[in-house]
């Protein structure tokens, strides 16, 4: 066939027509769209049988019951556990994000040892040998007291094992991070009995006076309290928030009383004065059960008349009187203290003044009032075998006078050579959560050898020499004693519902392994085969119920102590906790702000949690500080501007968020930001407010009770 131009063209056109009518192009077009619907890089989660497992969330002190939805044994979703006494189905955003913590890329995936500046993998066996070697040296040198341990709590069997280990080893230096719980316990020790702690029957209260408590920011047991807040809306209870800034809590309150920062104690005492002067107090309770009332009465009448208090607090005298009247006239009033989440200790003057209000109302051990609850005891711990080294060691006083972590670090920084040679850090992150982070880091660096039991590479773990990584809570057994401030005793049980995902261990087992490897009296003080056996033994008769239901609830007829109260400490009128810095060079006041959506404790916030945080708090890597428009105008700042914030402790670059709800002259800065540890979702976002605030020791308790610091803002 002759292919001329014409037939070539014809062929070409024919081919085009042929292909077009053929199914080929249409099939290809269809295939290509189907391909976009099945991109291999978009995951397809495997399906399977659905089951639910119950456990307890221990991310925060709330200790909510949670339920884990699983597909073929693979956990896919966290839900609140319905019917659980603390949270009855509700759950906070952090608990909901637990699975992100489980698979967190920042987790320590196996034991690590620091060689120079880099981490090297090490087997569990070698890690334990190495730690025991260091420990054995201390005992050999007859200085077991050079071992110290920091944990978040002294409750429950895992912390119990750490504390027991230190005793058996020969050290008193067991520290827990100070929070408002400690101040409340000290307050109760002063005003009621030692060995008692407060139970606030908030749900049945009809008038709640909160001195800066972040009731909605995560104070106490967060979900439990959110539920109570809703119950108040239904039964029309009145909630009054006293705070210099319109927090979430203040926003939810029926009345918000903006008060000058740090003058809460004055306000409380002013109210006491008014109640006493007008004879509005419960005479039968005051005359029948209290000591030191006359001294207290004279003291407040002399120093805290509403008129005087009005000047210090900025609250009009009429308002103080009105509040006092409302509080005294309420059927079941309660006053509470503990700033923000309550993760930091408070001032004894303030707490006793606030509790004095409760006593004046006579609302002790009554429905809707404050209860004196004995410490919860269920551990059947056998006696510790103390050898001579141990006995000599524990006869030495604890390092740092008040026995607080702040005091320990202060002591270390004050000494040429660290009095601590070996430090255990378990479930705490002092290099992030404590005031004056720089000083804490300095102290930590002075300690020759640090053993971290952390699950994630946090700021403190990064400074350790060896990490014996723990299971996170979803992977382990653990008994969880009740949350702070509840009027019922709820003990929960954490059970492994996942993993372990990585080569980690239950911290209880890690301690048992170390103890056993040390041999002698230390080993024999730990007669349990493993942590699970220990847990079963120690919980004893409640174990069956605990493991069966997942929790144990003791209600109604708890053995409450007599409601006696002693006003003597309050009558002493101790100094208020002053803030650092002079007004001349630092005209403003910086107050840390707690935010429910940001974790400010041991854990860094999860990707989900960070995602919920407003762009008026973090914008890209910048933190925004709250400023009243009046303050901003004076400095010449407007919304979104960069500014330098300076305090006696340091400086930082921040952005400005103009907020009508903050008192002029006050700067609010969110807690929980400015992480430096490796975690792509939170690292280097914002500034850690604890770098700008230094510790201030409260004379009443010896604890660091700083609530803010003087500051200066300038344009950049």
């Amino acid at each position, binding site marked *: 066939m002759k292919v001329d131009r*014409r037939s070539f063209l014809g062929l070409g056109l024919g081919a085009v027509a042929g292909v077009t009518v053929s199914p080929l192009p249409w099939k290809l*077009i269809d295939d290509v*769209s189907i391909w*976009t619907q099945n991109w291999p890089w978009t995951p397809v989660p495997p399906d399977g049988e659905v089951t639910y497992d119950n456990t307890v969330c221990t991310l925060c002190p709330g200790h909510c019951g949670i339920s884990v939805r699983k597909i073929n044994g693979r956990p896919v979703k966290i839900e609140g556990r319905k019917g659980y006494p603390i949270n009855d189905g509700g759950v906070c955003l952090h608990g909901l994000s637990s699975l992100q913590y489980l698979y967190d890329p920042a987790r320590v995936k196996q034991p690590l040892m620091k060689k120079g500046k880099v981490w090297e993998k090490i087997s569990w066996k070698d890690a334990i040998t190495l730690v025991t070697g260091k420990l054995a040296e201390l005992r050999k040198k007859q200085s077991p007291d050079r071992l110290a341990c920091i944990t978040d709590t002294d409750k429950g069997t895992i912390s119990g094992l750490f504390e027991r280990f230190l005793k058996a080893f020969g050290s008193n230096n067991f520290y827990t991070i100070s929070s408002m719980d400690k101040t409340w316990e000290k307050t109760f020790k002063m005003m009621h009995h030692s060995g008692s702690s407060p139970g606030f029957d908030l749900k049945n209260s009809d008038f709640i006076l909160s001195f800066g408590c972040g009731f909605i920011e995560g104070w106490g047991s967060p979900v439990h309290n959110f539920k109570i807040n809703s119950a108040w809306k239904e039964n029309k209870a009145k909630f009054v928030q006293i705070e210099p800034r319109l927090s979430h809590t203040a926003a939810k309150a029926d009345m918000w009383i903006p008060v000058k920062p740090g003058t809460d104690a004055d306000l409380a005492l002013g109210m006491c004065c008014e109640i006493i002067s007008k004879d509005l107090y419960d005479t039968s309770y005051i005359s029948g059960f209290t000591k030191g009332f006359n001294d207290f009465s004279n003291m407040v009448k002399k120093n805290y008349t509403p008129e005087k208090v009005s000047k210090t607090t900025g609250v009009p005298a009429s308002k103080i009187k009105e509040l006092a009247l409302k509080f005294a006239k309420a059927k079941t009033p309660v006053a509470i203290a503990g700033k923000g989440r309550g993760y930091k200790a408070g001032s004894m003057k303030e707490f006793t003044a606030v509790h004095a209000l409760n006593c004046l109302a006579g609302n002790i051990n009554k429905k809707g009032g404050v209860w004196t609850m004995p410490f919860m005891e269920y551990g059947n711990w056998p006696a510790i075998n103390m050898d001579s080294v141990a006995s000599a060691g524990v006869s030495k006083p604890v390092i740092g006078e008040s026995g607080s972590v702040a005091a320990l670090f202060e002591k270390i920084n004050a000494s040429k050579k660290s009095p601590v040679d070996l430090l255990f850090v378990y479930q705490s992150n002092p290099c992030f959560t404590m005031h004056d982070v720089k000083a804490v880091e300095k102290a930590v660096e002075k300690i020759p050898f640090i053993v971290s039991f952390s699950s994630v590479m946090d700021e403190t773990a990064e400074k350790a020499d060896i990490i014996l990584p723990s299971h996170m809570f979803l992977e382990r057994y653990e008994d969880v004693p009740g949350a702070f401030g509840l009027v019922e005793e709820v003990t929960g049980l954490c059970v492994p519902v996942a993993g372990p995902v990585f080569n980690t261990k239950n911290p209880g087992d890690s301690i048992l392994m170390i103890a056993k490897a040390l041999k002698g009296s230390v080993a024999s003080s730990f007669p349990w085969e493993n942590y699970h056996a220990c847990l079963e033994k120690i919980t004893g008769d409640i174990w069956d119920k605990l493991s069966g239901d997942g929790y144990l609830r003791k209600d109604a007829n708890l053995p409450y102590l007599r409601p006696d109260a002693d006003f003597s400490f309050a009558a002493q009128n101790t100094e208020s906790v002053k803030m650092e810095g002079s007004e001349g060079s630092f005209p403003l006041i910086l107050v840390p702000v707690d935010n429910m959506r940001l974790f400010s404790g041991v854990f860094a916030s999860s990707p989900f949690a960070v995602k919920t945080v407003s762009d008026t708090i973090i914008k890209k890597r910048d933190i925004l500080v709250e400023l009243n428009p009046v303050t901003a105008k004076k400095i010449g700042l407007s919304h979104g501007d960069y500014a330098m914030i300076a305090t006696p402790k340091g400086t930082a670059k921040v952005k400005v968020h103009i907020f009508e709800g903050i008192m002029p002259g006050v700067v609010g800065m969110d807690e929980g930001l400015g992480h430096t540890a490796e975690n792509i979702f939170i690292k280097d976002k914002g500034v850690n407010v604890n770098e700008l605030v230094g510790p201030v020791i409260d004379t009443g308790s010896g604890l660091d009770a700083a609530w803010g610091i003087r500051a200066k803002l300038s344009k950049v």
Partner: protein
Amino acid sequence: MDSELIPKGAKRCSFPFFATGLAIAGIVLLWGVYAMLLCWFKGLNQTNMNDNYGFALWIWADLAVIALGGGAFFTGLLRYIFGIDELKNIINFAVVIGFICYSSALLILAIDVGQPLRSWFIFWHANVHSMLTEVAFCLSLYFSVLTIEFIPLILENRKINKVPFFHHLGHNMHGIMAVFAATGAFLSFFHQGSLGGVSGVLYGRPFSFRHGLLIWPWTFFLFTWSAAAYGPCFTLLITKITEGITGKKLVKDNVVHLLAKISGWMITSYIIAKIIDTIYWAMVTAPSEGFTMMQFYSNNGFYGIWILFAEIVLGGIVPAAILIKKDWRENSKLLLLAIILAVIGICLNRWVMVLQTMAVPVMSFDTWALYFPSWQEIATTILPVAYGFILIAIAYRYLPVFPQEQELYIEK
């Protein structure tokens, strides 16, 4: 070098000069193509669009370009349906411009969607209630019409025309062009309108929502009307630019003045309708939804009442006045001013209908959303300009686009 391809007797610049010009435009084009490929392979995160600004710069460009390309359908309509014969001297160019505008619009849409490989769903799974469905159908059909209208012009190339097949094909297509011109005008009416409908039907967006006739909001008719009114100005503007670049007069003044006059009266009638629409919207529609007109023009860093003034007065009333008054329209400077203002006016209208609609807060606690495009968006928006420049240059060089060129050239 390429003299065989150049229409007989036409004077063109040297090939190297031409090639250099193309190369420069080609670089801009490649920049745009690179940005386009980024958008396709990395996704629309390459843009600065966001969830408030789902429609942004290039959707505006899309609407603007289609309105400007309206010269093709409207001139076609006048030429073939209403038989205004003088316009044959500019219709070729109007078709070329239309072709460029519409092919650009389609290209932009292909970059704009998140899943371009699924674009054909719009035909297969069509939702007849959606204005965008109407747009898609009319747009692709009209683009086909424009292609058909463009082909004979290509076939007129001296070299191509020597091939008997193309010669005859071209001839036969000429014969039926009126049918296509009519179809094109009909399709244009709907797709210009449906583009107006796109924002006019958004009853969740009080800024752009309008009541209307049957299923069509008033913006439907306003868009068609404005495209017909302003499109010829763009044809004239590009003609003037081409004349400026080539240094030659290409279209006779009487043709230009005729088109300008028609455009002037169209703009006049349109702007009256637009003013009535604006007043009704400001006095009735918006207040019934709880808005005062000034709410749409305050409390933000960009959209002030100036934009409404610029659109209606500077871009509407002023050019209309110039174009309908003989003395003014025949003053070449005023004429140029008028067509430039008109082009700006129509672009502003499309800008406002797309971008301001997205920016205005609707919930009482919402805030204004302002946005600035990323370089990828700018590059892909400039891409059609470079492409248009190249296509016009090639068409002008090799095709008998301007029938009066030779005549004018000889006259000189």
